[in-house]
């Protein structure tokens, strides 16, 4: 059953509200980037590199050019000029280094790198001509094996903005570890994972007669893409507008501007016509990804389970040209209280594209290793894994020594355990069995940053009483349309149908990329502020009306309901907003407002969302067949704006976490330097049959330091800890510790 509890309080915020974009999505009318038409639209199809490292000596395109309908073939050897400085190619979230430039030179950095773009009159002509394009290469030695490259790992000289490097050591790890009575140390390996949103990247560039470009793009940041394209192609910002009204999933892969956008604009400018470029699923595997990672975690505790020493080292893959960085090991310095910590993080160059933030980047990987290690420590100490975590609960962020702005993690532990039935767990592994299946219970903690960012929003009230709120945010399935509508509707006491939310357009008010789980709190706050400002204006105008019944009314004495402002205790004494507009001789009222994070508060507090994940696994020991029939995710995420969409956010994180635990793995041929399972049939993501009962519960958490909504954001917390909970349950079921993800059936065979 869906959550149907209806709150008695008036308004929409906090109630399980259907998505306002639902009717468009269930009828196929929501339009995604590659679905806009334009007169004379040409189609571009990308040709990819056959080799992983080296140089293109020649592109042979004669046969392709003979194909009827082919217009032109672009490559490094034949393309319009683009910006020469790296700075122009560095987008809002670029890591340090030299950003990848499609067709920038003859150099090949990774297999499936784009080497040519065939543009033709039809999609089929472009696709089929592309298969006739060949290239000659000078091949050099590639590097794709992280295990081997770990020896070459280095501390990135330039740190990525917004990513804290590992904190300095605290206390004396080596001594504390040596002296401790209980200790473990283990290596954890993560396979590369690919975001693989269902919608493949696509860009439709509609060229107007005046040469201005309307770019429909798959992106998490229309303004990021707009600024980037303007810089790369030297266009006045006014000549380009980017629209991403609907985004078919992204999970981080669309934070940075994509090659389809660059190539479509390149072709459009050169050919002076409208162009569409879409990637194939195979080419989706040539994009940024969650990097391969090798981690070592060493933990020690006393007989009482209190942590005495924590060491976490991680080596992550990055591309030859950029130093992509995540906060991977930092979590081990803050999630539990410990006086002796040593954390380190290094990169190794691989012949791949630059990794790209994927759902809770860094935390998903690092907390997996920490939480698997905590389970190992609990086993070594003979302590219940949940109890071990409770005993090491941190009251302050150990890395910064700041108190938490809020931390209801203890409630997650208690309520999650109760809902799951954790008390039925037998301490010893291999002690629960049913039929051919061993049964295991495992748990893990999840943690993710709670962030807010500056956002500007606009609110417009029209004469007919309808309200429009807007900001250049994006809804990648997160529910942004819906929560902004709820917030705005409540501000004016309107039914949802009277509110229009406009996002997904670079022409709207300033909004950074949609990521980091900051959108609900930040965009929500800005919409709320814009509405408040608009109400002030409306009330001021109402007060000035002739014989106004509100002449003396202050904001806290009035209520906005159904298109009217009236005294709170006397609905009869009021005016309609339509009359206010008429009296002011205005067609509409408009206000813009900006939400700015309180830097002073941010400096004093550490803010995180938390979760406790409990998983049951069933393992057919003889065959390695594994099921996860049920899982409980208890989340502390501040105020919940919409329990329906909030639950979906967590479900999505959990399902992706199950994929990480059991299925997802980019398989490289080390001789060829090439990812081989570049499709949905052999890069496995979970299917419906894999997903059992997922019980999501939100614990009560009062947050008042992160902006006035009290919201923390839920897009990422659902994945963190999930893979560890499953891996730990597998150990509990089988007594077998599998540390390398994904845990495929061959790893479970005795």
């Amino acid at each position: 059953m869906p959550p149907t509890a209806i709150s008695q309080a008036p308004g929409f915020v906090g109630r399980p509200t259907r998505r306002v974009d639902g009717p468009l999505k269930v009828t196929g009318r929501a339009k995604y980037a590659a679905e806009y038409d334009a007169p004379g639209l040409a189609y571009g199809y990308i040709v990819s590199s056959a080799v992983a490292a080296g140089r293109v000596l020649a592109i042979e395109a004669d046969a392709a050019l003979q194909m009827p309908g082919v217009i032109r073939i672009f490559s490094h050897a034949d393309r319009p000029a683009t910006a020469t400085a790296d700075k122009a190619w560095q987008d809002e979230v670029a890591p340090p280094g030299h950003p990848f430039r499609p067709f920038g030179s003859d150099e090949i950095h990774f297999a499936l790198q784009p080497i040519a773009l065939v543009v033709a009159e039809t999609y089929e002509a472009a696709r089929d001509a592309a298969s006739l394009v060949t290239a000659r290469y000078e091949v050099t030695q590639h590097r794709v094996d992280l295990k081997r490259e770990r020896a070459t790992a280095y501390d990135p000289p330039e740190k990525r903005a917004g990513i804290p490097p590992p904190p300095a050591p605290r206390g004396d790890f080596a001594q504390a570890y040596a002296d401790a009575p209980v200790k473990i140390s283990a290596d954890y390996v993560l396979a590369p994972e690919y975001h693989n949103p269902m919608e493949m990247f696509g860009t439709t560039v509609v060229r107007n007669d005046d040469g201005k470009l309307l770019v429909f793009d798959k992106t998490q940041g229309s303004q990021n893409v707009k600024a980037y394209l303007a810089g790369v192609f030297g266009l006045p910002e006014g000549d380009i507008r980017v629209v991403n009204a609907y985004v078919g999933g992204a999970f981080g892969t669309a934070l940075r501007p994509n090659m389809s956008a660059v190539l479509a604009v390149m072709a459009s400018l050169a050919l002076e016509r409208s162009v569409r470029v879409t990637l194939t699923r195979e080419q989706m595997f040539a994009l940024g990804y969650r990097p391969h990672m090798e981690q070592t975690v060493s933990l020690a505790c006393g007989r009482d389970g209190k942590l005495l020493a924590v060491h976490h080292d991680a080596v992550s893959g990055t591309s030859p040209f950029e130093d992509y960085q995540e906060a991977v090991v930092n979590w081990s310095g803050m999630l539990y209280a410990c006086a002796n910590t040593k954390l380190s993080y290094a990169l190794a160059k691989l012949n791949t594209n630059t990794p790209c933030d994927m759902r809770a980047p860094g935390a998903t990987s690092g907390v997996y290793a920490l939480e698997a290690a905590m389970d190992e420590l609990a086993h070594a100490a003979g302590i219940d894994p949940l109890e071990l975590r409770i005993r090491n609960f941190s009251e302050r962020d150990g890395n910064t020594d700041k108190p938490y702005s809020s931390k209801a993690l203890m409630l997650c532990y208690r309520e999650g355990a109760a809902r799951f039935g954790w008390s039925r767990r037998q301490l010893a592994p291999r002690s629960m069995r049913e039929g051919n299946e061993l049964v295991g219970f495992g748990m893990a903690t999840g943690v993710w940053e709670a962030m807010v960012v500056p956002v500007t929003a606009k609110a417009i009230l029209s004469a007919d009483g309808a309200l429009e709120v807007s900001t250049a945010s994006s809804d990648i399935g997160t529910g942004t349309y819906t929560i902004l509508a709820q917030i705005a509707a409540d501000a004016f006491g309107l039914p949802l149908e009277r509110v229009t939310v406009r996002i997904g357009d670079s022409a709207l008010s300033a909004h950074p990329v949609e990521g980091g789980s900051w959108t609900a709190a930040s965009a929500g706050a800005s919409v709320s502020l814009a509405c408040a400002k608009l109400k002030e204006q409306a009330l001021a105008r109402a007060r000035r009306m002739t014989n106004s019944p509100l002449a003396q009314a202050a904001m806290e004495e009035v209520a906005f309901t159904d298109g009217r402002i009236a005294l709170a205790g006397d609905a009869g004494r009021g005016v309609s907003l339509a009359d206010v507009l008429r009296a002011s001789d205005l067609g509409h009222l408009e206000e813009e407002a900006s939400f700015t994070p309180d830097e002073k508060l941010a400096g004093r507090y550490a803010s995180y969302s938390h979760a406790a994940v409990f998983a049951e696994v069933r393992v057919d020991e003889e065959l390695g067949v594994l099921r996860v029939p049920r899982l409980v995710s208890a989340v502390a995420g501040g105020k919940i704006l919409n329990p329906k969409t909030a639950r979906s956010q967590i479900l999505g994180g959990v399902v992706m976490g199950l994929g990480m635990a059991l299925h997802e793995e980019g398989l490289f041929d080390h001789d060829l330097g090439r990812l081989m399972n570049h499709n949905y049939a052999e890069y496995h993501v979970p299917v419906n049959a894999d997903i059992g009962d997922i019980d999501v519960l939100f614990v009560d958490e009062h947050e008042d330091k992160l902006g006035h909504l009290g919201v923390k954001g839920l897009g990422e917390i659902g994945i963190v800890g999930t893979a560890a909970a499953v891996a730990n349950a597998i150990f509990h079921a089988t007594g077998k510790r599998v540390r390398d993800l994904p845990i495929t059936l061959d790893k479970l065979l005795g």
Partner: protein
Amino acid sequence: MLQRTDASQRGELYRVKLAINGAPHDVEVAPWVTLLDLLREGLGLTGTKKGCDHGQCGACTVLLDGMRVNACLLLAVTCDDRAITTIEGVASLEPTAGGGLHPLQDAFMDHDAFQCGYCTPGQICSAVGLIAEGHAHSRDEVRELMSGNLCRCGAYSNIADAVWQVLRDGTAGEGGR
């Protein structure tokens, strides 16, 4: 009767008659055009999605003579004289009293059985086919028989709930918001 029309710069074209969402369409297509690309690029019916183009995700699911199939793996020329229902025509199969939606469309909204919405048309067409086939008799069988539709947002349990409810009750249930 198969008719080959004059070769043009678009190559050899064949005349194909299709009934799409009840409306007859007489189109000329090259043999290497898939039904999916014909719908999306040729006829502007972009409700049917391209998620992999290789029959590995189900986003392009349409009903061909009432049976759910992957439109990406059908050459349009082989669909001559056949009836196709896409997401744009699903509502007219079984309109409910309110809103003119198919009960599955309503149930998907009620159960929040989608997030980004990209797999949704395929999921709904697939579920229409599943119900018509009549082989699912439990929620587990719904999960198995809906496994040809990937959802990367991870709405699977809500999808299973929505489909199972319509299968069991024939409606979206309580409805409302």
